[in-house]
């Protein structure tokens, strides 16, 4: 309570309600608004500049053509397909694993056990590790297995899976925690085993929260480029990826590649691809928020 005491000492008594209209508080409020205006102003500028720059190249060619040496013939078809392959593989690897880990921690783990406490601390730490380090991890792992060409779908998906696993675990745990204990107690009282209770009562009740968290995590993976860059994903891909061992490129990597080219035409392509990526990400976020608002039960 020392803060409160020192705070009280610092307050000069004011008479009446005029305190809010003094120059100090008014300037303060203006500064607060200014900080939001600046942040959203930058967001608006970003969107307007990339839309304006990308418009000339935002045509059907972007979806149907392969990268080319001339910007007016190039498209992002392999990058679109590559992103779909990598994110689908990431989802298949991460979602069951993340939910299982969260169920263990939230429903079955004895919090006094040192192993479980270690896992908890560890998940929080992993969430703060820079994404590029996950790229180095996947690079070292693939080297250890003796893989020569590390730019393959399964390699990229491995790095992204490990990157978003802590995010999925944390979101799932929060969703499970929001399910009231009475549901579990009622199920147990009717003779269900703990596992049946989890599978038939707790998990179904938590599905909206889990879905929201998972979609947000996958949208983060979709926009991520650094770990894939470390795995050498920046190559000239002029074919459709067709399997887990296939070479690939993704939308963020393609944007990075085109940004580095000297010709202005490629910068327009990078902007057009950025618009596409932003639209997809916004749609994913909107779906996640919709699920949260529509299906989340208030207990």
């Amino acid at each position, binding site marked *: 309570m020392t*803060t*409160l005491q020192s*705070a009280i000492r610092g307050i000069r*008594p*004011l008479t009446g309600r005029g*305190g809010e209209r003094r120059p*100090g*508080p008014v300037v303060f409020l203006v500064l*607060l608004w200014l*900080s*939001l205006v*600046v*942040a959203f102003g*930058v967001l608006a*500028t*970003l969107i307007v*500049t990339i839309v304006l720059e990308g418009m000339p190249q935002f045509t059907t060619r972007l979806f149907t053509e392969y990268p080319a040496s001339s910007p007016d013939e190039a498209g992002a078809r392999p990058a679109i397909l590559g992103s779909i392959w990598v994110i689908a593989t990431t989802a298949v690897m991460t979602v*069951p*694993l993340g939910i299982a*880990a969260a*169920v*263990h921690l*939230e429903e*079955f783990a*004895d*919090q*006094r056990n040192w192993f479980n406490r*270690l*896992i908890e601390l*560890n998940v929080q*730490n*992993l969430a703060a590790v*820079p994404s*590029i*380090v*996950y*790229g*180095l*991890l996947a690079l*070292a792992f693939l080297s250890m297995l003796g893989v020569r060409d590390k730019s393959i779908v399964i390699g990229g998906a491995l790095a992204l899976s490990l990157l978003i*696993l802590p995010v999925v675990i944390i979101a799932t745990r929060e969703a499970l925690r929001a399910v009231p204990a009475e549901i579990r107690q009622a199920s147990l009282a009717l003779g269900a*085993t*703990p*596992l049946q209770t*989890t599978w038939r009562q707790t998990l179904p009740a938590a599905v909206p929260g889990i879905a929201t968290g998972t979609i947000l995590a996958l*949208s983060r993976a979709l*926009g991520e480029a*650094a770990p894939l*860059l*470390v795995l*050498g994903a*920046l190559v000239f891909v002029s074919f459709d990826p067709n399997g887990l061992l296939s070479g690939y490129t993704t939308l*963020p990597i393609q*944007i*990075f590649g085109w*940004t580095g080219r000297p010709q202005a035409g490629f910068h327009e392509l990078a*902007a057009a691809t950025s618009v596409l*990526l932003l639209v997809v*990400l916004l749609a994913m*976020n909107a779906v996640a928020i919709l699920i949260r608002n529509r299906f989340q039960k208030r207990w």
Partner: protein
Amino acid sequence: MTSITARKGGPGLASGHPASPSPSPSLRGRRRPGEALAKVALRLAAGITIVTTLGIVAALLVPSLGFFAEVPVSDFLFGDRWAPRFAEASFGVLPLVTATLWTTVISLAVAVPLGLGAAILLSEYASARLRKVLKPLLEILAGVPTVVYGFFALQFVQATVLREWLQLPTGAFSVLAAGLVMGVMIVPTIASISEDAMSAVPQALRQGSAALGANRMQTTLRVVFPAALSGIIAAVVLGVSRAVGETMIVAIAAGNQAVVVTDPLQQGQTMTGFIANAALGDSRVGSLEYDTLFAVGLLLFCITLLINAISIALVRRFREAY
């Protein structure tokens, strides 16, 4: 509190049966091998996270040992010339560290005031309806991919704003442009965590302050802010660790010349920028060039771990429990 096994057979149930420390078989029902197996599987899934951490440590440490066998640690940490690909190679990491320091400091100079301002407005001033509009907007800001921020930093902030409009003496890249845009990227992180911290301050404190005649600004700055300090520190520190680890913005807009940065209008290569750029060149597994990537990665990992540890210590130091 919702753990099932912790309660089953734990003190909660056993207290009803003081005579029997463990429930008799008839009370426990039929044994279910499938159930036990499923629990082991769940436990293994949670264990993957530990394997990941051990994997990161091993993946960074093993090649780094190879690197430090050839380059003395002191040359690496205190050398001021970074030229790993030159014939006369030099591995002083200071140029990379100074560039990281510049981009981090510039981004925090943007993100801390903007993020805290937004958090105060949302938590102390905004109506519920306004908050419902502003929070999703902040989430959009957090959802923009970093490669798009990088493109914006290079094409608009550096080329148009700094060079064309302000006529500043700067080249195609600068740590200033990268840092400024990175700051905007970090705003939502700082805003949302410190808003949570300020919203958690009990209403009674604000009412007490108002009853003593304080206006809203005084209440915010002298009562709510100190009370939420531990959460605010956690938010800022998380911002620092995101700035240090951010890759794409600096790889695109900060440049790729590893020189000791003395002026923010200069270009520079950060630690993450080096890893991203060096990975583009195909380096043979086991070569010194390949090991260099991991040595820099190890330094980056140690710095983020250190930042996290400082954060935990500061949060404990300033925690106010209500």
